[in-house]
């Protein structure tokens, strides 16, 4: 009967993807409640697939994945741990009870570097299995300093492990359309941005404030509990709520940027995991990635408004919430 409670979800990096209701974290709806997907038991035990593409070694692959796991585990405000159980022959995406990270040859997914699947208990939101695949259609590197022309496996693993933990995509990035199709990243400030840096770039190995806020929101460590605050409010246009607006909270004292979306039917947003102190709020339309990287295709995301700042500070209290604030945007 347990199988009836389980659902499989696929998330990808780099192109067309299927996503759940997006937020800093993913969730399932149980009755009228939205429950965040998360691992209930830790350490998260994972296997690595024994087969690696030519040019890589299994030890190098496992070391790169291990470094990515260690990066998430090192977030002081979150309680996350991983355990590499061993090597396995089974493929990622097989629902076998084992969390597997490995390579698959998927030339048909020519814009997807990697993807993550979940098996979740839809009654509790518990993640019971999650697999990650890396597409051998692309050139990979596990070199400590990266290699020109090859995608850095540690960076991509860090992104996919964020999904494995339950995080959704961040919109903290700027892109441009490529003549050959798809988008190219100009700049990003979140490992969880859905489009990767160029091949050879290793900037994706470092978590940013947005990533830390997300994982802290999901797995806040007991020792850090309450050291963070949040901000909430709503975005309206001509008095009507705006769905899917990207709201960014900037903390000038530290330079950190943390974002989220308006998700409620009232245009409401909430950004958690913020450092206490004054923040500047900026709202922009979600026009720097495919909308389906964040929301399911049936959602009516409003992108027809001009970027706007809230005209006051949002002073985030320690252990408290600032707001609610109403940010009024105008059509463009």
């Amino acid at each position, binding site marked *: 009967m347990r199988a009836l409670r389980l659902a499989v979800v696929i998330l990808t990096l780099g192109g067309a993807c299927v996503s759940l209701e997006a937020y800093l974290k993913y969730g399932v709806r149980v009755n009228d409640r939205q429950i965040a997907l998360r691992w209930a038991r830790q350490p998260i035990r994972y296997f690595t697939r024994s087969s690696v593409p030519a040019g890589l070694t299994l030890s190098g692959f496992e070391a790169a994945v291990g470094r990515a796991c260690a990066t998430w585990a090192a977030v002081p405000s979150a309680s996350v741990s991983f355990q590499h159980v061993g090597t396995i022959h089974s493929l990622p995406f097989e629902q076998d009870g084992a969390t597997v990270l490995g390579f698959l040859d998927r030339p048909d997914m020519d814009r997807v570097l990697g993807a993550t699947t979940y098996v979740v208990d839809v009654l509790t939101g518990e993640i019971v299995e999650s697999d990650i695949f890396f597409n051998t259609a692309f050139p990979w590197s596990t070199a400590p300093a990266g290699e020109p022309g090859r995608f850095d496996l540690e960076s991509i693993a860090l992104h996919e492990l964020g999904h494995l933990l339950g995080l959704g995509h961040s919109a*903290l990035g700027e892109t441009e359309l490529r003549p050959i199709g798809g988008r190219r990243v100009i700049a990003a*400030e979140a490992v969880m941005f859905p489009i990767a840096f160029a091949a050879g770039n290793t900037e994706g190995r470092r978590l940013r404030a947005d990533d830390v806020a997300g994982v802290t929101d999901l797995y806040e460590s007991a020792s850090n509990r309450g050291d963070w605050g949040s901000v909430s409010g709503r975005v309206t246009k001509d008095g009507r709520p705006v769905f899917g607006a990207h709201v960014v909270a900037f903390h000038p004292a530290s330079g950190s940027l943390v974002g989220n979306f308006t998700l409620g039917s009232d245009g409401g947003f909430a950004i958690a995991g913020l450092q206490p102190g004054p923040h500047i709020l900026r709202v922009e339309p979600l026009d720097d990635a495919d909308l389906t990287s964040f929301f399911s295709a049936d959602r009516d995301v409003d992108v027809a408004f001009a970027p706007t700042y809230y005209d006051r500070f949002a002073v985030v209290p320690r252990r408290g919430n600032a707001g609610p604030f109403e940010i009024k945007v105008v059509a463009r």
Partner: protein
Amino acid sequence: MRRARRALVGLGLCALTWPAALATAQSSATPPPAARIEVAAAMTVGATSPLGGATAALTPNTGGPAFTLFTADADYRTPLGAELRVSYRLAPWLLAGILGSVSLGDIRVVIGADAEGARPPAFTGERLGQASVEARIDRFATRWTAWRGRLVPYGMVSGGVFRQWHDDRLLIDTGSLIQAGAGARYDLARRPRRRLARLGAGAEVRLTRVIGGFHWGRERRTVPSARIELFSGWGQ
């Protein structure tokens, strides 16, 4: 910054030393009545002080230039405040006391360089309150009095700590300050052998060295300010 610090230290030393050097000549000046306790209330106004700036930046892709989402620069505009001082006269030319002050000013933030050309607002409506407790010393140049000793120039130094809060009463930060300045006081009324021995008014200008508090990168800053006070002297 170093020059400002030197000037500040120099002004403080000057305020402390010149009356002492003149003490030998005091016998020829008209000393003010020796009211032992002084209670004063004052109004203060500070100059606009820059608090620094911050850049909301994204990490650029390979080969790309630094990417600025927007910039934000802040200053603290003309805080108005009130002070209450209680001092004890250690000598005819020396007062030592404590003071408490509260002030309120506007934080103005100017947004610029928005990557998508968003209409930049100026956050002018944000209020920042500050309360401070300081120890203060006043030394009077009794040799340079005028109007039959009623007008007396003086130098002052003070130092203490402060707390700041946002207008919705959320504590933002704490810090310390050192002030040095000079001014003049005028005795409006002298009442020898009465409990309320003196009434007067004064004005001074000063430099305030602020360390900490609300800032975006300028943790240490020097701010000029001015002050007018009404004082009363009690006891003989």
